C-alpha cells in the first residue's frame, strides 16, 4: 500500500515533466541549506564553545576551511568516487568535475546537481566532526592535509559502499542518513586521531572547562534544527517518509537529552546544560541510521539507550582510558552511530506492535538484518581506523602533526592564526 501511494505521488510529475518533482526538489533544496547550517555555524559554535578561549578561532577556521576544501574535492572527485558507477568498493572518475551533469540532469526525481550538493553538505560535516578529537593542539596545515586525504580515502569510498551501489548496500544494510557513513567514520576517525596526536598539555592534571557555554548551547540548538534536513532530507522527497524521519529524529533527540540530564542529576547531583545538549547530540547521532525506518515509539527507546550508553562512554574514554578525544567525538558520534545502526536492525521490523517500524530490508528477519548491520559496523570501523591511522602517519612524516609546546601554551589563535577571539 505504502509503495503504491509513493508511486502515485510520483506519477503526475513523471507523466508531465519527465521526472522532475518540484515538491521533492523544494524540500531537498531546503534540506541542503539546513545541513550546511549544521556545520556553519552550528557545529563550529558547538565545538568552539567547548575549547579554551585561546583556541576558539582555530576551531572556527578549521570548520570553515574543511567546508571549503571538502566542497572543492567533492566537486572534483569525491562525488564521482561515491556515486558514479564503478565496482562495489569504489565508484569511478566518470563524473570528475561533475562532467555531464547539466541543469536538466535528474537523479530519481530531483536534479542531480541538487543531489550532489545535498551529499556535499554531508561530506563537509563528517571531516568537520573529527576535529573534536584533536582540537587545541594540531597544526593547521596538518588538519588540512589530513582532511583532504581522509575525505577521499575514507569518506568517499564508504559512502559508495553504503549509498552508492556498493557491497554493503547490496547486502541490505539499512543506514538511512549516515549512521555508518557519517557518525561511525567520524567517531572512529576522531578516536584514532586523538590517540595518534596525543593528549593536550596538562590533560588530566588541570581542568579545561568550556570557555563559552552559551556558544555551545547555541550551536546545539542549530544542530537540532539542521538535523531535520539531515534525516528528513535523506528521504529525498516531501512525503510521509520525510515527515516520519523528522518526527523520530526529534523524539530521539528530546529523549536522549532528558535521559542524559536526569542520569547526571541522579549520579552527580546536578543537571547541567552541557549534559542536556550532549545527550541531544547523542540522540540525534543514534537515530540517524534508523530515522527512515522506525516509529516514534521505537525512537523513544532508541533515545533512552543513546542517552544511557553514550553518557557512560564519555566517562570511560576520557576518565578511565585517559584518551584525550577532546570534544568526545567517539563516545557521542561513534558510539551513537554504532548503537543506532544496530538498533535499526531491530526497530525497523514491522512486527513489534507499538514499536514497529516501516519494515526490514527485503527478505530479512530481525536476526539476519542485525547480522548485516553488524557487518556494516565492523567493516566501517576497521576500515576507518586503519586508513585514518595510515593517513595520520603519512601526514606526520610530511609536515608533522602537532604545534610546538610553546605554541600550544600560547594558544593556536595567536600562534597559528595571529588573531584573537575577543576584545570585549
Amino acid at each position, binding site marked *: 500500500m505504502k509503495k503504491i501511494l509513493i508511486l502515485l505521488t510520483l506519477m503526475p510529475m513523471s507523466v508531465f515533466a519527465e521526472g522532475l518533482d518540484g515538491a521533492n526538489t523544494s524540500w531537498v533544496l531546503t534540506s541542503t541549506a539546513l545541513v550546511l547550517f549544521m556545520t556553519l555555524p552550528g557545529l563550529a559554535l558547538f565545538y568552539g564553545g567547548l575549547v579554551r578561549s585561546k583556541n576558539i578561532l582555530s576551531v572556527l577556521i578549521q570548520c570553515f576551511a574543511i567546508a571549503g576544501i571538502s566542497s572543492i574535492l567533492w566537486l572534483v572527485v569525491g562525488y564521482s568516487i561515491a556515486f558514479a558507477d564503478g565496482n562495489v568498493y569504489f565508484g569511478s572518475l566518470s563524473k570528475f568535475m561533475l562532467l555531464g551533469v547539466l541543469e536538466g540532469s535528474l537523479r530519481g526525481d530531483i536534479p542531480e546537481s541538487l543531489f550532489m550538493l545535498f551529499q556535499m553538505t554531508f561530506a563537509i560535516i563528517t571531516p568537520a566532526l573529527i576535529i573534536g578529537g584533536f582540537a587545541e593542539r594540531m597544526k593547521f596545515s596538518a588538519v588540512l592535509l589530513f582532511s583532504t586525504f581522509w575525505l577521499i580515502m575514507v569518506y568517499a569510498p564508504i559512502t559508495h559502499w553504503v549509498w552508492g551501489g556498493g557491497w554493503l548496500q547490496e547486502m541490505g544494510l539499512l543506514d538511512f542518513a549516515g549512521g555508518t557513513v557519517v557518525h561511525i567514520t567520524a567517531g572512529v576517525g576522531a578516536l584514532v586521531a586523538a590517540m595518534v596526536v596525543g593528549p593536550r598539555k596538562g590533560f588530566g592534571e588541570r581542568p579545561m572547562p568550556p570557555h563559552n557555554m552559551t556558544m555551545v548551547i547555541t550551536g546545539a540548538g542549530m544542530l537540532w534544527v539542521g538535523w531535520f534536513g539531515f534525516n528528513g532530507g535523506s528521504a529525498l522527497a516531501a512525503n510521509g517518509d520525510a515527515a516520519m524521519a523528522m518526527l523520530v529524529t526529534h523524539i530521539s533527540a528530546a529523549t536522549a537529552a532528558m535521559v542524559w540530564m536526569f542520569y547526571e542529576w541522579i549520579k552527580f547531583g546536578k543537571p*547541567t546544560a552541557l549534559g542536556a545538549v550532549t545527550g541531544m547530540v547523542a540522540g540525534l547521532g543514534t537515530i540517524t541510521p534508523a530515522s527512515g525506518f522506525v516509529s516514534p515509539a521505537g525512537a523513544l527507546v532508541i533515545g533512552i539507550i543513546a542517552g544511557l550508553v553514550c*553518557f557512560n562512554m564519555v566517562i570511560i574514554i576520557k576518565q578511565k582510558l585517559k584518551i584525550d578525544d577532546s570534544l568526545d567525538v567517539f563516545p557521542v558520534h561513534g558510539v551513537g552511530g554504532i548503537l543506532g545502526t544496530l538498533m535499526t536492525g531491530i526497530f525497523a521490523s514491522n512486527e513489534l506492535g507499538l514499536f514497529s517500524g516501516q519494515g526490514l530490508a527485503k527478505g530479512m528477519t530481525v536476526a539476519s538484518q542485525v547480522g548485516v548491520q553488524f557487518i556494516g559496523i565492523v567493516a566501517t570501523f576497521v576500515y576507518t581506523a586503519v586508513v585514518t591511522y595510515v593517513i595520520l602517519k603519512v601526514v606526520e612524516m610530511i609536515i608533522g602533526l602537532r604545534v610546538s609546546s610553546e605554541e600550544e601554551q600560547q594558544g593556536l589563535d595567536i600562534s597559528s592564526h595571529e588573531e584573537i577571539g575577543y576584545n570585549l
Partner: protein
Amino acid sequence: MKLVSAILRPHQLDDVREVLLETGVSGVTVTEVKGFGRQKGHTEMYRGAEYQVDFLPKIKLEIVVAASELSSVIEAITKTANTGKVGDGKIFVSTVEKVIRIRTGETDQDAL
C-alpha cells in the same frame, strides 16, 4: 595620605559606595578580582568531569584618603560589608606619599 584597599563581595559594591559618599569620600577605584581564602569555592561539572573552583569573584576598592579620615572610612566599610559569614573580606591600609590630580596638577590633599 592613606590607601585603603578593601576586598569585598561583588554585590556589596553599591551599598558600600553610598556609605562612602556619605562619609565624604570623593573618589573610588574598583577592580574585579578573584579571591582565595577561608571561604570555600564551588564545584563545576562538565560532562562528568567535576572540579573544584577555589577562586571566588571579589571586588577590590581602592580609596585614597587623608590620614585623618582613615578611621571613619574603615568604619564605614566594615559596618556595611559585614554579613558575619566567612568571605566578607579584608581591609588593607598603607601609606601614599604623594597624590597628583592630572587635570590640574594639584597635589596631595588638594588632589583628592
